[in-house]
């Protein structure tokens, strides 16, 4: 009986380890795009995985593991900003990079310097819009256009209904379009 329990625990740990290894990079990417701060994203990723490990027993598999992990990450991120607002006198240990710095990252792909420059400008413009979005709009936008999740998955991840997700995404896209419409 005790051996069975031990065996089950070992299996659960193996399952968790596999899930964590499979989704860690994606969690980090989402948190990096949300915070533009690599150190903070790393800390929040570790916190997410720790919390997931502590609650792995309560994960019933109704949603995908990624959806569950993303949900934990979003909540931890919210908690982080809420705590930071409460502790306004604390020094910012880590700083997010500027939108220009964030836009520096582009896959080479052998394109011409002019094309690269134009792409950087465009990416920086998107970052500027993302920076101005509300928290929910930003989360939905990044989950859709960076993580390429389906609307139903975004709804499960954020705990919103699909119609609300659509509305947030539509508003975010309208702002992106307005930014690029103004440029033309």
């Amino acid at each position, binding site marked *: 009986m005790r051996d069975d329990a031990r065996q089950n625990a070992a299996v659960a740990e193996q399952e968790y380890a596999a899930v964590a290894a499979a989704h860690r990079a994606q969690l980090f*990417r989402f948190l*990096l795009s949300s915070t533009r701060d690599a150190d903070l994203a790393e800390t929040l990723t570790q916190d997410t995985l720790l919390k997931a490990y502590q609650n792995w027993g309560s994960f019933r598999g109704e949603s995908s593991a990624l959806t569950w992990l993303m949900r934990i990450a979003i909540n931890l991120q919210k908690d982080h900003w809420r705590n930071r607002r409460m502790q306004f006198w604390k020094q910012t240990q880590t700083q997010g990079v500027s939108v220009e710095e964030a*836009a520096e990252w582009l896959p080479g792909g052998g394109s011409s310097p002019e094309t690269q420059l134009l*792409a950087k400008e*465009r*990416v920086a413009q998107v970052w500027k819009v993302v920076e101005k979005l509300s928290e929910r709009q930003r989360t939905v936008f990044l989950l859709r256009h960076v993580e390429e999740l389906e609307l139903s998955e975004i709804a499960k991840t954020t705990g919103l209904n699909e119609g609300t997700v659509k509305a947030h995404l539509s508003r975010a896209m309208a702002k992106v379009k307005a930014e690029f419409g103004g440029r033309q």
Partner: protein
Amino acid sequence: MNFMKNKTTQRTEAAAQANFEGQDFDAQERELAEVLGAFRQSVHAWSDAEFNRERKLVPARRPLFGFRLAVASSLLMIAAGVTGGITVYQHYHDIAVTQARQDAEKKRLADEKARIDKMNQDQMAGHRENDDALLADIDSDIAQESPAAMEPLASLMAR
């Protein structure tokens, strides 16, 4: 006929405009898709680079110790100032209250004294009036004419 021709021309122009706008819309959508694709690739490239970067463990340092100390000192000074201010205010307030109470007592005593004096004066005046009336009565009661036996003396004095 002319009307029909105009209508046909208008339709053609509208169709051309719609076609142009449609192309424009398609071009915008295409550009937007390209932009979002570049954004996605950029985030992925950045994330991959950061994810694989080695991180040094740095000991956590106490953030802005000096600033915290300054804030704490300022708060303490403000608290001390407020407490001292309240104490001083309370002290002077007590003195003022006592002084006012003493002044009120003095005024009350003075008023009381004035009232008693006035009462005494009134009494004295009453007595004086009574005395005068008594003397007047006495004067009137006493005979003003000399008795007959004293008449020769009175006539001598009258000379």
